[in-house]
C-alpha cells in the first residue's frame, strides 16, 4: 500500500507507505509504516521511498569537494568553516608535507579555500585536504550560500544550468557540495550571477526552471529574449531532482571536478 504519489510534497510525520516498500533517505519506519521525517518531495524508485529535503544542512561525506573559510589557525592545522554543523580541519602536513613552515604565511583567517573531504570519523571530525587538481585558495570573487540539497539543481543535467550562467555572465563559477558557490568576474556580472543563483535556490522544487533562468539572465543582461526554443529538458525537469537524483549527484561531482581545472593556477601557486 502506498499513500502518496511521486514528487508529492510531504511534511514530517506524513505516512508514506506500508512495509512492502523500503525506507530510503528522509524517511523512517514505525510500526510497519514508512513515514517522512522531512519537509520535501517524495522520490519513489522501484520499491524504495525517499524524501528529498527542501531545506537541509550539509553533513560532510568523504570524497566531497567543498568550499571553506578559515576561521582559526592552530599549532599544526587550520580550522575551517564549511557551512555545516561540523567544522573542518586542514592539517599543515597536508599542505607542507614533512617540512616545517609558518602556517600564518600560507593561509590566514578569512581565506576561502577549495578542498576535498579526506575523512570523516565517527565523532564527526572532518579532515580536509588540498591534494587534487585545482584545489586551493580563491582570490577575490564573492561567495553565495545555497541549501546543499539544491546543488545538483544548480548544476543541472550535465552542467547545463551552471554552464549557461558561466557563458552568459562570463564569470568563473565554482560550486562546492556544501552549498557554497564562489563567483568571480566583472563586479556587475557577479551580482547578476548572485541574483540568478538565489532565484534557482528559491525555485528549485518547481519545473521548467531552465527556461526561467534563461529568461531572467537575458533580462538582467538587457539582451533580447531568445525565441521560445522547444526545450527538451524543461518537461523532464522535476525528474532531475527526484528520480535521477543520485546520477545527478555524481554528475554534479564530476562537474565540480571539471571546474577545478580552471582553477588550476590557483592550486599550483599555493603549493610552491
Amino acid at each position, binding site marked *: 500500500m502506498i499513500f502518496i504519489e511521486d514528487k508529492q*510534497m510531504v*511534511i*514530517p*510525520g506524513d*505516512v508514506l507507505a506500508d512495509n512492502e516498500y523500503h525506507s530510503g533517505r*528522509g524517511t*523512517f519506519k*514505525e510500526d510497519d509504516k514508512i*513515514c517522512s*521525517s*522531512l*519537509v520535501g518531495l517524495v522520490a519513489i524508485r522501484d520499491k524504495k521511498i525517499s524524501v528529498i*529535503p*527542501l*531545506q*537541509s*544542512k550539509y*553533513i560532510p561525506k568523504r570524497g566531497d569537494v567543498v568550499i571553506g573559510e578559515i576561521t582559526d589557525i592552530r599549532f599544526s592545522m587550520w580550522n575551517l568553516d564549511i557551512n555545516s*554543523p*561540523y*567544522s573542518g580541519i586542514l592539517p599543515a602536513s597536508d599542505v607542507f608535507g614533512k617540512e616545517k613552515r609558518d602556517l600564518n604565511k600560507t593561509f590566514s583567517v578569512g581565506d576561502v579555500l577549495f578542498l576535498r573531504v579526506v575523512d570523516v570519523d565517527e*565523532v*564527526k571530525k572532518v579532515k580536509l585536504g588540498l591534494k587534487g587538481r585545482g584545489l586551493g585558495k580563491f582570490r577575490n570573487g564573492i561567495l553565495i550560500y545555497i*541549501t546543499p540539497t539544491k546543488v545538483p539543481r544548480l548544476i543541472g543535467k550535465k552542467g547545463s544550468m551552471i554552464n549557461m550562467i558561466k557563458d552568459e555572465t562570463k564569470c568563473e563559477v565554482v560550486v562546492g557540495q556544501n552549498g557554497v558557490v564562489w563567483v568571480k568576474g566583472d563586479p556587475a556580472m557577479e551580482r547578476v550571477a548572485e541574483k540568478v543563483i538565489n532565484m534557482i535556490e528559491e525555485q528549485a*522544487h*518547481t519545473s521548467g526552471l531552465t527556461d526561467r533562468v534563461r529568461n531572467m539572465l537575458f533580462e538582467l543582461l538587457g539582451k533580447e529574449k531568445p525565441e521560445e526554443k522547444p526545450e527538451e529538458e524543461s518537461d523532464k525537469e522535476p525528474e532531475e531532482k527526484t528520480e535521477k537524483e543520485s546520477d545527478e549527484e555524481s554528475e554534479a561531482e564530476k562537474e565540480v571536478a571539471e571546474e577545478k581545472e580552471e582553477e588550476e593556477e590557483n592550486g599550483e601557486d599555493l603549493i610552491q
Partner: protein
Amino acid sequence: MITIIINKDFKPKSKPSKRADGRAFDELRPFKIEAGVLERADGSAYLELGGNKVMVAVYGPRELHIRRLMQPDRAVLRCRYNMAPFSVDDRKRPGPDRRSVEISKITSEAIMPAVFLEKFPRSTIDVFIEILEAEGGTRCAGITAASVALADAGVPMRDLVVACAAGKTDGEVILDLSEAEDKDGEADVPVAIMPRTGEITLLQSDGNLTTEEFEKALNLSIDGCMELSKAQKEAIVKRYGD
C-alpha cells in the same frame, strides 16, 4: 508579510455560551500560523492564537562550542522562551525569570521526543521562542510554533508536536483558556502531543480537578491539538507555494 487578525472578526456560535468571548466550551480562539517569516534564521514561524502573538526562530543543527553541554551521540536541543517587556499589560521585567526558565525546559522536553537528535551528534539545535503579545496559553502556542519552525529549518522529525490547553472556570471544563479564564479559573491543563501516534509529550496540571474533569480536560485538549495540527501542516505547505 505578517497580517494581524483582529478578534472582532470572530463570530460567536449560535449556541449561547457562558464564556466571556462567546466561544463554545470546545472552541479554540481564532488562530493563524505562518512558516518562514525570518530571513536570517534557518527556520522560523509566526503564530497567533487569540491575543497571543508568538515568533519562533530555529538555528541549526550547528556547531556547539560549549564542550560540557556536548553529547557524543546526539544533538542537544536548546530552547529559550522569552516574553517581550511589552507583551503584557504591566511591563514585564526583561530577562529570564522562574517562569520562563520552567517553560524553556518543558518546551525542549516536549519537542525532544519528536526530533531525530541522534542524526547530528556533537551539535546543537537552538530554538528561540519570543512572545510578542501574551493572552493566556503562551507555552502551548510556543510549542506549536516551535515545531513548525523546526520543520521549516529542515530538521528531521518523527512528527510535528502540537500543544493546547484545557481547564476549568466557573465549574465548567473548557478548551483553550484565555488570560481572564486562566486567572479566575480553577484549573489549567496544558497538553502537547504527537498527533500521528497520539503520544503525549507534555502534560501539566495546575489547580484542582476531579478525575472525571481531568479526563474531560485531557480529551478536550487533544481534540484542540488535532485542530491546530491541521493548521501547522497547512502553514508548511503554504511556505513553498502550491
